[in-house]
């Protein structure tokens, strides 16, 4: 009985220290403080966000059913990209929008209202190019 009590006295402080150390971890700050986080420097203006929401976000988000779209670009995860990958993603947006490839024709057959107007496409390209240049300079 005495042995058991002795063991308990030794174990209790160890367990207490373990619990205190674990509770001091803020898991949220771990996931958000990596080298890829651009939260402080990268802001999408409202007008651009509006265009994304209308024509792009339906497929390019983490919960999208389209594997291809998810693999290519996740608009809701841009903040988590490294600066180099973010610049690359902006370059892709500029080029693909410039080539008129997005949204795809097949998608627009069912959702013609999601098409980018020429003004929206120009605005998106200009923003992507300007933002990429600002990030690299």
């Amino acid at each position, binding site marked *: 009985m005495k042995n058991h009590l002795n063991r308990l006295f030794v174990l209790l402080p160890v367990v207490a220290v373990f619990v205190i150390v674990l509770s001091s971890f803020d898991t949220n700050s771990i996931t958000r403080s990596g080298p890829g986080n651009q939260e402080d420097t990268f802001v999408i203006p409202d007008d651009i966000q509006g265009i994304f929401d209308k024509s792009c976000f339906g497929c390019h988000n983490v919960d999208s059913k389209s594997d291809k779209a998810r693999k290519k670009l996740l608009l809701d995860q841009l903040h988590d990209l490294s600066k180099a990958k973010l610049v*690359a993603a902006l370059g892709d947006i500029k080029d693909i929008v410039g080539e008129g490839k997005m949204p795809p024709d097949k998608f627009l057959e069912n959702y013609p209202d999601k098409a980018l107007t020429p003004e929206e496409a120009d605005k998106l390209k200009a923003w992507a190019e300007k933002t990429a240049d600002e990030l690299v300079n």
Partner: protein
Amino acid sequence: MKKWRNTIAFIALIIFIILQFIPYDKQMNRPVKGQDLFETATIPEDIGQLIKSACYDCHSQFVRFPWYANIAPVSWLVAKDIREGRESLDFSVWNTLPKREQLKLLDEIAEEVIEGTMPIDIYKVMHLEARLTDEQRDSIVSWADSFAEDLLE
């Protein structure tokens, strides 16, 4: 029967000879000093060899033309691959590209190499050195990613 066979072979030969005189958009090497990737960037030797042997025959101004690249219809296919390759990425004008474009291309290199879409299958048929192992693919991807980070420093 033999007469027919000879006639068909003769016609095929005539067609083959005629093909050689059809003009096509032959791609020449026109390197400009100081613009190639290897002229300013320090590329690790093993990666440099991989890039030169697996990519440079379509994506540069230092294309090595094998003997069959001058014989139609193969010459047409080679010319098309080089033209399209240079349009999407020409390592020999690397130093003229804006940094954001370089970063985009490095991202595409990593993506296409890891997915196995590059080098293209038809090139690998005649170029054994372009059949990259998984380890070689991984090393190119790691290099592309770290080189991109270095460009931002």
